């Protein structure tokens, strides 16, 4: 979950958004408008909330707002209008705070500090009782336990006062809906528990249902659309185009993840490099969105000139160049200094835990659902595989996969326009596709699509294990390196 704000501005409106993956697949890149995550809550002068938010996040959101912006206007906007609203909110702040509380009907109670539970950046405000007795100063809820600490000592055997910190589900480097409960021993993580709060509902295939949830894992939109199409009659160009979009989406998702990692690392150059690489991908996605199917992708999208089909080819070429530069940047020692050797998941552990997707491939185990696909094989697809299983391996693997994905997209785009025959069989009950975070198994039930993602819980377990024993900053980097999601996916 990120709060976006105008770059380098000290006082600006914030935008409560889901993870950056969702943003980018909506086709709107906040960073291209100079919107950067707020890293300093004091600077926030207004809050923009996508509407509707999942019910389970209501209380955290209320707590978050009441703390973040007691004096700032809170605006709720439908997802489709968010892109425009950001600019409008900027203006609002410019004209003073009086026009504040429009859309008051959605405002959550500002006063209920106590009920909010934890809200992200420390977790010590929500549980009001601690402060009530005047006994707490934040870094140690339980003085009784102090004298009898029995917890695992950190590497140097010094048990310091244990500190409980709760991150998420909003306002933290965690993605929306993910809660991390961390016990710190001084500055070292002694314990870590990860929970995903959200549950993926069945995806409605027919239009006309309720508006899409803004926090849905939209990074999978094209993947899901592809799954939905599995049972439909063959469509030569359509099959190839869907593949293009799946691959663009994979690259976008990986790059968006990389950008949030870069933000966590405070690495301006990498943030900029990902922005440069993402822009052509978004443009390509937008121009393809006109080719029909799955218009969910184009919510808030960039306007495309009609008859601009070949734009996608050009944009993909640009993306390919930008990605090559990005790959060189990541291969250097600067990234390794923060990630190498941290959060190691050995091959044996990955296999035993049942990890899937890029995380497993970075440990050198697990396959790629795409290698079963005859169309991918026709494009000469080779699964990318990493070794070492540390945070660096996971990062490099995702970068390499984005590079490969753009190449695949270019290949299949060429096939689409050359009229090569595609596939159209797949009457199997479950269709398995490789999503950005790992394989997805989808099944049609009526006009709904049920999705199952094997290995989603495993990754939470492994990630919490990998963070233990690390210094706080490194632990966060390790957690981020797993590309976690706030969604428990299950049928």
């Amino acid at each position, binding site marked *: 979950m990120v709060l976006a704000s105008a770059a380098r501005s000290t*006082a600006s409106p914030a935008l409560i958004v889901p993870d950056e993956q969702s943003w980018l697949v909506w086709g709107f890149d906040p960073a291209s408008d100079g919107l950067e995550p707020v890293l*300093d809550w004091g600077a926030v002068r207004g809050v923009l909330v996508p509407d509707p938010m999942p019910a389970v996040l209501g209380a955290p959101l209320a707590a978050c707002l009441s703390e973040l912006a007691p004096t700032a206007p809170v605006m709720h906007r439908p997802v489709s209008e968010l892109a425009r609203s950001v600019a409008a909110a900027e203006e609002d702040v410019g004209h003073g705070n009086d026009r504040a509380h429009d859309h008051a009907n959605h405002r959550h109670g500002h006063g209920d500090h106590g009920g909010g539970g934890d809200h992200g950046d420390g977790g010590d405000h929500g549980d009001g009782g601690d402060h009530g007795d005047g006994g707490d100063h*934040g870094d140690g809820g339980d003085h009784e336990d102090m004298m009898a600490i029995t917890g695992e000592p950190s590497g140097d055997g010094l048990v310091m006062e244990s500190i409980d910190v709760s991150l998420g589900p909003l306002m933290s480097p965690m993605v929306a809906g993910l809660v991390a409960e961390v016990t710190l021993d*001084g500055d070292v993580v002694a314990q870590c528990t990860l929970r995903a709060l959200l549950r993926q509902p069945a995806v409605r295939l027919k239009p006309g249902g309720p508006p899409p949830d803004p926090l849905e894992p939209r990074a999978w939109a094209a993947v899901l659309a592809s799954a939905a199409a599995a049972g439909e009659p063959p469509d030569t160009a359509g099959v190839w185009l869907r593949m293009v979009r799946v691959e663009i989406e994979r690259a976008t998702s990986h790059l968006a993840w990389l950008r949030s990692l870069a933000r966590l690392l*405070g*690495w301006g150059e990498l943030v900029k490099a990902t922005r440069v690489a993402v822009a052509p991908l978004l443009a390509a996605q937008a121009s393809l969105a006109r080719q029909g199917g799955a218009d969910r992708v184009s919510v808030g999208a960039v306007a495309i000139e009609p008859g601009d089909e070949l734009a996608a080819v050009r944009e993909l070429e640009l993306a390919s160049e930008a990605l090559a530069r990005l790959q060189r940047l990541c291969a250097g020692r600067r990234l390794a200094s923060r990630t190498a050797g941290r959060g190691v998941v050995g091959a044996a552990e990955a296999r035993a835990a049942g990890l899937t997707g890029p995380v497993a491939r970075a440990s050198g185990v697990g396959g790629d659902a795409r290698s079963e696909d005859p169309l991918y094989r026709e494009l000469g697809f080779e699964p990318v595989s990493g070794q070492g299983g540390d945070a660096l391996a996971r990062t490099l693997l995702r970068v390499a996969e984005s590079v490969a994905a753009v190449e695949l997209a270019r290949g299949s785009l060429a096939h689409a326009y050359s009229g090569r025959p595609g596939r159209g069989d797949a009457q199997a009950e479950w269709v398995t596709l490789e999503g950005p975070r790992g394989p997805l198994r989808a099944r049609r039930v009526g006009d709904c699509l049920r999705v199952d993602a094997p290995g989603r819980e495993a990754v939470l377990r492994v990630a919490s294990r990998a963070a233990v024993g690390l210094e706080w900053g490194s632990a966060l980097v390790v957690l981020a390196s797993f590309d976690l999601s706030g969604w428990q996916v299950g049928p």
Partner: protein
Amino acid sequence: MSYFTPLAVVGLALAAAPGVWLLEQLVAGQRPAPGRALRDLRIMLGSPLQRPESCDSALFHLAPSLLVLASVVALATVPWAPGFRGIDLQAGALLFVAALAYVTPAMVMAGWGAGRPLAVLGGFRWVALMLAYAMPLAMVITSVAAPAGSLRPTDIVRVQHAVPMAVAQPLALALWLPAVTAVCFLPPFDLPQAGGELFGGVFAEYRGLDLALVALAQRVLLLAVSGMTAALFLAGWEWPLLPPAVWMGLKTAAVAWLLLWAGRRFPRVAVDRALSLAWRVANPLSMLAIVYAGLLTLLFYR
């Protein structure tokens, strides 16, 4: 104390804010929008102070002032031009380091006063880091002072008439730059507030005037540190053709630009790595730098 010009120093400190802001915008590749910055400032100053939910709001509200005081004293020791300087003392370079040393208690007060786990953690990181870099800082000051035979910054500038210290003692410069970046809590050493990691860390709770003071202090620190770097290593005003103050200004701006640029180019250093670098590499090297400075002085500066 005959040169003491408090007004000039205060004016310079206030000028640091827009000046460094402009540089920040340029380094980030953005077009400066002064109107917007002014509006932001007005909003920031207009918002009320935060009362932290902790036991120690006195320390909390004292910290920004201590930070400003330390940075302004540091700024006052910088020799800007032959006739324009704040405090020109025999032990001025020592006072500069002493002033920088008071950033540390300010951070601890801010972190402790905020009463949040991550803020305390930010203070903790800062103490560890500054402890590790205190010795390189002091050693470097000593090694540039040795050739001049004086801790007076103006003397150190004069002794560089022929060869700037950056050329004579590159090792000292290499130790100095990361250490002063750390003192200014600029990226990649922004460990106490650490954007993505601690969410503002020690400063997360500050609002209104407190926040403005912190922002001012950081920029004054950057100006002071850049100015001192220009004076100690780049021969200050001592180059021909241009007027002295212009040279000094240009060099200061160049150093500030370098520091800000490096902050964008590198990911934030990990605490453990920063500490092990400081203790295992920077500290032994600073000893070496002092031995080298001694030899240099004996051979060439007597």
